[in-house]
């Protein structure tokens, strides 16, 4: 666990000694305590909006294992050569310096719901009055026969930040002309619904730009259809000819096995041998800390109250982002950021006499198909009959003008700058 200078300067007693960390929320406690687990779009946003300009009504502690945050959003633009790796990495410093949030660099391993404490990897405990849980996803390593955690170097998923994202780019760069890339797409529900298809677009963009026009990208999908399919597929044909081939389950008849050592993928219909690169994006579930705390069904996602983002199992815990079941909202950074603002409003209402308003949510997912050619899908959402339901939705259309597509990409880039500023500054 790392203490920042700000923690010490602020005299945040909660961080100075383990005995203080475990102190219950009684007698002489000046301020209510909020612990936020996970520094992604859900957690970082929630921490900032709860701390609110550091006005000190609430003690906010953000627990995050990593020193920096690599965004999964726009990692496909890094893979496609549109952004450097440094451009998708961000720091947490301003959350401490500008908002007085205590940053605890540690892995949270467990939640003691009875005592209202978060247990860290080194055994220390952080007491909370409200807990905001935004742990993201875990991968189901047993969801593709023959694939495993040990195989993730040979057949990378690239669905978590860091080395895995970089591995995808390295493998793509090594594909020879005429080589075959097989992408195994995930079943619903998963992080970033259009992500696999934007990534395939970026593969094709890089291969085309580097003179490897005989290479092939085969997407084996367990789903009958996918996000923005009606726009992606005609665009692929227009931009990349026959380079990208999408096969649904009725065509490939199931993914029977993969062999990471030989680069083989066997479906019910065909075997792909000596693949230049196999990208396995497996099935997903809520992060372990949420599942282990009994907030999600086995292998699933956490149920939440759509009006508050609170776990339906524990009224002192909020679950945000990819780890929760947010009804019609997709698992996206934008969604998590939106949900965090509802949670922050409710937390401040309960702990700092803040005013509360009816929950409202928004999301947009942009995808880059080729240079200056982006598409989008999104909507507004509200609580309705026990779930978060879409009220207004929109989606790009095939055959839109070059100017609209160029504007959509400009919007995509501006959104990235804005949401990162919203999370980290």
């Amino acid at each position, binding site marked *: 666990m790392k203490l920042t200078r700000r923690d010490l300067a602020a005299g945040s007693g909660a961080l100075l000694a383990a005995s203080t960390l475990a102190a219950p929320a009684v007698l002489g406690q000046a301020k209510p305590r909020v612990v936020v687990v996970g520094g992604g779009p859900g957690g970082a946003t929630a921490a900032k909006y709860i701390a609110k300009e550091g006005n000190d009504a609430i003690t906010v502690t953000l627990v995050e294992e990593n020193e920096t945050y690599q965004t999964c959003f726009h990692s496909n633009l890094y893979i496609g050569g549109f952004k450097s790796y440094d451009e998708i990495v961000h720091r947490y410093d301003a959350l401490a310096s500008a908002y007085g949030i205590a940053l605890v660099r540690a892995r949270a391993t467990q939640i003691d719901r009875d005592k209202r404490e978060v247990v860290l990897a080194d055994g220390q405990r952080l007491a909370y009055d409200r807990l905001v849980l935004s742990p993201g996803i875990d991968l189901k390593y047993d969801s593709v026969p023959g694939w495993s955690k040990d195989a993730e170097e040979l057949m990378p998923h690239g669905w978590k930040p860091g080395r895995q994202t970089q591995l995808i780019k390295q493998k793509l760069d090594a594909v020879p002309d005429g080589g075959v890339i097989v992408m195994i797409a995930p079943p619903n529900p998963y992080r970033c619904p259009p992500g696999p298809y934007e990534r395939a677009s970026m593969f094709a963009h890089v291969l085309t730009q580097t003179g490897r026009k005989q290479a092939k990208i085969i997407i084996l999908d367990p789903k009958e259809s996918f996000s923005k399919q009606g726009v992606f597929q005609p665009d692929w044909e227009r931009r990349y000819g026959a380079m990208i081939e999408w096969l649904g389950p009725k065509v490939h008849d199931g993914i029977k096995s993969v062999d990471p050592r030989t680069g083989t993928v066997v479906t019910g219909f065909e075997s792909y041998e000596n693949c230049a690169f196999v990208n396995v994006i497996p099935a997903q579930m809520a992060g372990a800390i949420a599942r282990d705390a009994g907030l999600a069904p086995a292998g699933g996602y956490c149920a939440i109250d759509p009006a508050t983002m609170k776990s339906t199992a524990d009224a002192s815990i909020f679950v945000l982002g990819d780890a929760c079941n947010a009804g019609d909202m997709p698992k996206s950074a934008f969604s998590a950021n939106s949900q965090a603002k509802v949670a922050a409003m409710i937390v401040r209402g309960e702990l700092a006499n803040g005013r509360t308003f009816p929950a409202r949510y928004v999301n947009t997912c942009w995808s880059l198909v080729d240079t200056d050619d982006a598409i989008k899908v999104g909507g*507004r959402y509200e609580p309705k009959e026990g779930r978060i339901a879409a009220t207004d939705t929109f989606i790009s259309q095939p055959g839109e003008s070059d100017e609209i597509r160029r504007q959509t990409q400009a919007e995509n880039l501006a959104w990235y*700058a804005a949401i990162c500023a919203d999370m980290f500054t």
Partner: protein
Amino acid sequence: MRAAAGLALCAALFAIAAPARAAADKALGEYLASECTSCHQLSGRSTGGIPAIIGWPEPQFVAVLESYGRKERDNQVMQAIVARLSHDDMAALAAYFGALKPKP
């Protein structure tokens, strides 16, 4: 006496300036604005694809939102956002963003 007169003058000026803002709900504006800041930077910085929206005159801010509502402006994201904003919501947003100054 002079100080008291000054205060009275200030109060009078405030009374004249106040009605325009009185309708807008600041706390509501702040909450609703958090929806906008996923795309529009609070600092007023803009990288081109999405405009800065701080420091605008309030009537202009409301007029632009209403034009999305009538689909005279064609951005799909903004049309969907505006579809659920009441006039009070728009006034609250206009007051909140209108009062913000660009950060260096």
